[in-house]
Each structure stands twice: as structure tokens, then as C-alpha cells.
């Protein structure tokens, strides 16, 4: 039987690896400021000159870890809702969330929600570049 959405058990090593990744990543972005140190730039931005949906995330993470919500929002406005959604999905998928909140899990795994989320990301992608070119 192939493992399904709800039948697959959370893998302890996977959860541990995610936890280590989050702690190490947060530590790096807390200590170093990507606005000062030349952190790896976005290849998409380097190649095309257009911002991608993830541009500004590194600077925004640094600001967020120092409690500077406004700066984080200005660097990448989609980061805070994206992090909230990732945290919710992680809880639902890798912990016991899918048993306790099956309806929420079902909505967030559904085609309608994911297509909607993709539409938001693409509109944001177009919008932030349009904003830079026409309004700044």
C-alpha cells in the first residue's frame, strides 16, 4: 500500500532535521545582516533584473528576527503570511495536526486553495515589479 496523505506517519528524523534546519538558519540570519554582508544574491534577479517572489526574504528574515516588523514587511511583504502558512502546514503534516484539525488540513490540501495561493503569488510577483517600475 502506498502511503497516503493521512496514513503516512511523521518521521522522527525528518522532524529533527527540520528543527535543526530552522535553528541553524535562524541563527545565521540573526547574526549576519544580509543588507551589509553580501549574502548570496537571487540568481533570478541577477539574470533578469526583475524581482522574484522570494527577493528580499533574507533581509526580511534578519529584520524579523530582531523584531523589526515594519522593515521585514518592506523588504518582502509576503514573507510573514508565507511563514505563518508554512508553520501551519508543518504542524498539520508533520505533527498531530491532521488528526485534530482534519477539516483545515483538507482545505489546505485541496486544489482550490492551492490554485488560489498560486494566483496570489503570481499576482504579487507581477505587482511588486510593476510597483518598482511605475511608482518608484
Amino acid at each position, binding site marked *: 500500500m502506498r502511503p*497516503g*496523505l493521512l496514513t503516512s506517519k511523521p518521521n522522527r528524523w525528518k522532524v529533527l532535521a527540520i528543527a535543526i534546519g530552522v535553528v541553524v538558519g535562524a541563527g545565521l540570519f540573526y547574526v549576519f545582516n544580509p543588507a551589509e554582508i553580501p549574502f548570496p544574491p*537571487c540568481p533570478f534577479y541577477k539574470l533578469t533584473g526583475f524581482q522574484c517572489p*522570494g527577493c528580499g*526574504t533574507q533581509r526580511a528574515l534578519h529584520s524579523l528576527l530582531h523584531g523589526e516588523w515594519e522593515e521585514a514587511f518592506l523588504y518582502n511583504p509576503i514573507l510573514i503570511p508565507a511563514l505563518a502558512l508554512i508553520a501551519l502546514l508543518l504542524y498539520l503534516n508533520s505533527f498531530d495536526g491532521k488528526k485534530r484539525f482534519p477539516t483545515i488540513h483538507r482545505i489546505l490540501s485541496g*486544489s482550490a486553495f*492551492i490554485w488560489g495561493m498560486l494566483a496570489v503569488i503570481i499576482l504579487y510577483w507581477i505587482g511588486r515589479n510593476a510597483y518598482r517600475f511605475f511608482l518608484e
Partner: protein
Amino acid sequence: MKYCSTCGEANPDNARFCTKCGYEMTSEPAPQPAPATTPKKPSPPYDQMPATYLWQSIVVTILCCLPLGIPAIVYAAQVEKYFMNGNIDAAYRASRNAKNFTIASLVTALIIYIPYTIYLIYIIGAATSSSPLLPLFE
């Protein structure tokens, strides 16, 4: 209950002739009546739906600066639709593609970022300790 070998009609066990077509009943077993239509394949229970890998695809789209996460989200969106239509193989294929695209974008990011980071650490280290190799990077 036995069935007429000619027309398939159900008859009492002791009947010698079929009550419908009148042919003599034989002791042969009745032919299986052919199913009228193939029944629609029922969807397996919802908890067997394959994973969408949604959080992983958001991570590679928003948290690491590569738009390769977009196709991963496109595949993630297809999983439930296929599954609900009873197209289980397509649902698993979409799930696998979503997973593969998140891995591909993560690997691409690492291939670009790891050498860059090592180079950066070397530059910073060399600048602070005046390494004899520093002129190589200037």
C-alpha cells in the same frame, strides 16, 4: 433455484422446462450473466490521498530565491482534483512531480549558494587575518 442454459431465466429447482423460453433445462451450471456496465471505479478513502508537498514548495518559492518552486505548486494543486475524480495514478504522479520539483530547486540553490558562501567566508577571513592568498581574490 437453477437457471436456464438457453436464456438464463431463473427457474425452480425441479423444473424440467424453462418457464420463459420453453427449452429443456439441463444440469449445466448457468452462464454468468454479463455485467451490464462496468461500474465507476470508486474513490478510495480520503486518507489515502497522496501528499501535496505544499509547505516544501512554498519554502523553495519564497524562502530560497528561485522561482523553480512555481511548477511544484502547480503539481501540488493537481493532487486533490485527480484523486477526487478517481484518477489515483495521476494523483500519485502529481504528488511525485511536486516532490521532485521541490528537491530540484533546493539542489539548484545549494549548487549556486554553497560555493558562493565558501568563497565569501574565505574573503572575510582573509581580510581580517591578512592571508597570503588574499591577492588571488582581488
